[in-house]
């Protein structure tokens, strides 16, 4: 185009009908800023939850499990006089400042008032100071009790759990505030870092043995679902292929790894090699099962994948080729070991391994999203015909989405089987596919951090909150004097509660917790009529 060609000003652009009244970002920079803002808010909320929970936890643990109740408040009496008191006040001030700051942030955004950067710096400093003080108190208590600090780490008392949670809340708040711009620029990387750092400490929050076991078990389940969410997000979120049979690949990974590690074949391959085989087999099946769906889109595709999701567990149930063990599944799966150390039944080692794997997956997928392949997926999701005419091999690109999504599912499956020592067909029912899809949609389609958050949130609701509802409500009832709270049989209402939680989250954030930059979603847009398959179907 010659220089000086007058381009019409942007104000004159005609508004698309669907655009009127919809607040959509105009440029990618705006969208990225919004996304970063959302990640920032999630950190602020998470930090606040940890802070408050840290203060409430000791009281709670004392009531529920006769543990030694101990909170930062108690430090006044138990820590050396003077210093302890001062530190508690510092913590108190920092906490108040943080909470006030976070609330004022919410209001400022709500009323469209900008916040001066200087204030954020101040709050970051305050939060860091609070975190450091909390850490100091923790050390002081250790010294006061004349216990070895590092020996102490392995046998956490509930008091330490409380202080740890306060500390985590402070640190997350401080990080979110202090690195707001960086968070906005690299949300996935930031999330992965915070996730690894603090997630790794989850199995050591509670001193109480039983509570620890339960929490770590729930965290392990959450980690498995987080992996499923990340993998399914590639298929549904990136490439826009609605998959209702995702549990099939989870099953394939679990069965592959399980049968290789069980005595039935007499193989003695290390678990860490088996994992790669399971990933490869799941990826292969992803491509094989994906192939017949290539000409289908939207609802039609979903029905076919639904079929696969039913075929795989049923084939396993029927002892396919005498390899799957029928309804009993595969038993006697060896637990993994690393450098001669066996993981055994202890859930925390599986959880830690999964955590590490999840972080790697988030980083890899984040890179993938910003690559040639990531663009091709979005292009196919947006307009398959244009993508094909532009030079994208739609067949291989879609198959790659299926294969990569399935491989992560296979990875999750191999860990799942290794931890339980047994895989049975009913572990891979339709409900698993639905839960995985729920986590992705709730977290925010097309966003890695969103999918991971959805996975964590939904599985903690399912595996931790709902089973504990009775116990917690009884405790609250006893404490507050409203004993009738504890007399309700909550197990009857768990699915109502679950449903209500899901509905309220989706009402509050219709695009998911962390929707991807481009919010146009295969599930919402009715472009099926324009699909290549539809065009060729006429032939």
């Amino acid at each position, binding site marked *: 185009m010659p220089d000086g060609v007058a381009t019409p000003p942007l104000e*004159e652009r*005609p508004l698309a009908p669907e655009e009127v009244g919809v607040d959509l970002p105009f440029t990618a920079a705006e969208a990225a800023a919004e996304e970063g803002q959302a990640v920032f808010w999630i950190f602020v909320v998470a930090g606040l939850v940890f802070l408050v929970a840290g203060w409430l936890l000791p009281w709670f643990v004392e009531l529920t499990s006769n543990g030694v109740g101990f909170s930062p408040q108690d430090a006044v009496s138990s820590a050396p006089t003077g210093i302890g008191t001062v530190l508690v006040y510092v913590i108190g001030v920092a906490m108040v400042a943080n909470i006030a700051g976070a609330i004022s942030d919410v209001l400022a955004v709500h009323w469209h008032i900008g916040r001066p950067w200087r204030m954020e710096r101040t709050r970051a400093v305050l939060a860091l100071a609070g975190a450091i003080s909390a850490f100091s108190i923790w050390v002081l208590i250790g010294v006061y009790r004349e216990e070895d600090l590092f020996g102490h780490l392995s046998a956490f008392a509930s008091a330490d759990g409380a202080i740890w949670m306060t500390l985590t809340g402070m640190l997350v708040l401080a990080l979110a505030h202090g690195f707001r711009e960086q968070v906005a620029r690299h949300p996935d990387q930031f999330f992965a870092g915070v996730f690894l750092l603090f997630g790794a400490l989850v199995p050591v929050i509670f001193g109480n043995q039983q509570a620890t076991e339960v929490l770590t078990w729930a965290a392990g389940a959450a980690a498995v679902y987080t992996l499923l969410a990340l993998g399914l997000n590639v298929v549904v979120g990136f490439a826009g292929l609605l998959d209702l049979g995702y549990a099939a690949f989870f099953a394939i990974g679990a069965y592959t790894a399980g049968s290789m590690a069980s005595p039935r074949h007499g193989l003695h391959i290390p678990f860490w090699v088996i994992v790669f085989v399971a990933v490869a087999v799941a990826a292969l099946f992803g491509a094989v099962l994906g192939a017949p769906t290539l000409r289908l889109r939207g609802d039609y595709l979903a029905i076919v994948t639904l079929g696969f999701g039913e075929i795989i567990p049923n084939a396993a149930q029927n002892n396919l080729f005498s390899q799957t063990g029928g309804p009993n599944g595969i038993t006697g799966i060896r637990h993994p070991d690393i450098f001669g150390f066996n993981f055994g039944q202890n859930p925390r080692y599986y959880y830690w391994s999964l955590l590490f794997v999840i972080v790697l997956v988030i980083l*890899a997928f984040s890179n993938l999203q910003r690559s040639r392949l990531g*663009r*091709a997926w979005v292009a196919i999701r947006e307009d398959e015909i244009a*993508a*094909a*005419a532009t030079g994208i091999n739609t067949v291989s690109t879609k198959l790659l989405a299926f294969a990569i999504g399935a491989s992560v599912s296979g990875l999750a499956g191999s860990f799942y089987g290794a931890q339980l020592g047994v895989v049975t067909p009913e572990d891979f029912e339709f409900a698993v596919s639905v839960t995985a899809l729920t986590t992705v949609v709730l977290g925010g389609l097309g966003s890695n951090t969103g999918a991971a958050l959805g996975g964590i949130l939904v599985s903690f609701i399912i595996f931790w909150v709902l089973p504990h509802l009775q116990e917690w409500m009884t405790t609250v009832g006893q404490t507050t004097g409203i004993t009738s709270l504890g007399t309700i049989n909550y197990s009857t209402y768990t699915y109502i509660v679950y449903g209500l939680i899901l509905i309220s989250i989706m009402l509050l954030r219709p695009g998911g917790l962390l929707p991807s930059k481009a919010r146009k979603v295969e599930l919402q847009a009715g472009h099926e009529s324009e699909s290549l398959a539809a065009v060729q179907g006429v032939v």
Partner: protein
Amino acid sequence: MSPILEVRSITKRFGGLLAVHDVDFTVEQGSITAMIGPNGAGKTTAFNCVTGLYPVTAGDIVFEGHSIVGLPPHRIAREGITRTFQNIRLFSFMTATDNVMVGEHCRMKSGVFGSMLRLPRQRHEEREVEGRAVNALRTLGLERFADVYARNLPYGLQRRLEIARALASGPRLLLLDEPAAGLNPQEKVELMGLISRMREGGLTIFLIEHDMRLVMGISDRVVVLDHGEKIADGAPVDVRNNQRVIEAYLGAGATTAGVSA
């Protein structure tokens, strides 16, 4: 001049409908060739056959000396034929830059693992392609809108962005399906300038257009379709005075002006 594209008696049948029937024409290397015809004449169907979106029922299409019939659309794009669409088909939730970068997809080499690990070679390629995309936007006067989502661009600029995307893979034959549809007079003049400029750059252009001033002004050769059949083929002046063409546009009897109904 030698033909870059030879369409040899292609037929495209949709069930009982004969959309294109035994049509053949050639597009000369370095020329601007236009295809005109009344609505429903089968022009876009012919385009879809050339770009591989529709499999042809019969006939052969030869590009640069070898047959491209039966190749999938992305292979044809890689061979050197890209196109724009009558109803703009941009990737609406991708930025202008990303749209052009998708255009380079088939020329890029980085694979899955290289992208996952962000290997130096992949990063280098990404930077290079992004640089080229921004340059392409600059030459089309879209530089200011590099970061704007395609759906938010004004209509005329969307048409231009679609051309930029089609040019990104370095084609030798560019198919434009009604590039002037919906443009205002000034934009049409700009478009004519752009098309001539692209031809001067060595690109062969084959376009469908209803705007006769544009067609007659820039084309070297005009192919006329009606009811799926070729009724005329030649220089713009000859086609303009061709009796069958006038009949096709104005109805039978227009030439004999009421002498016989």
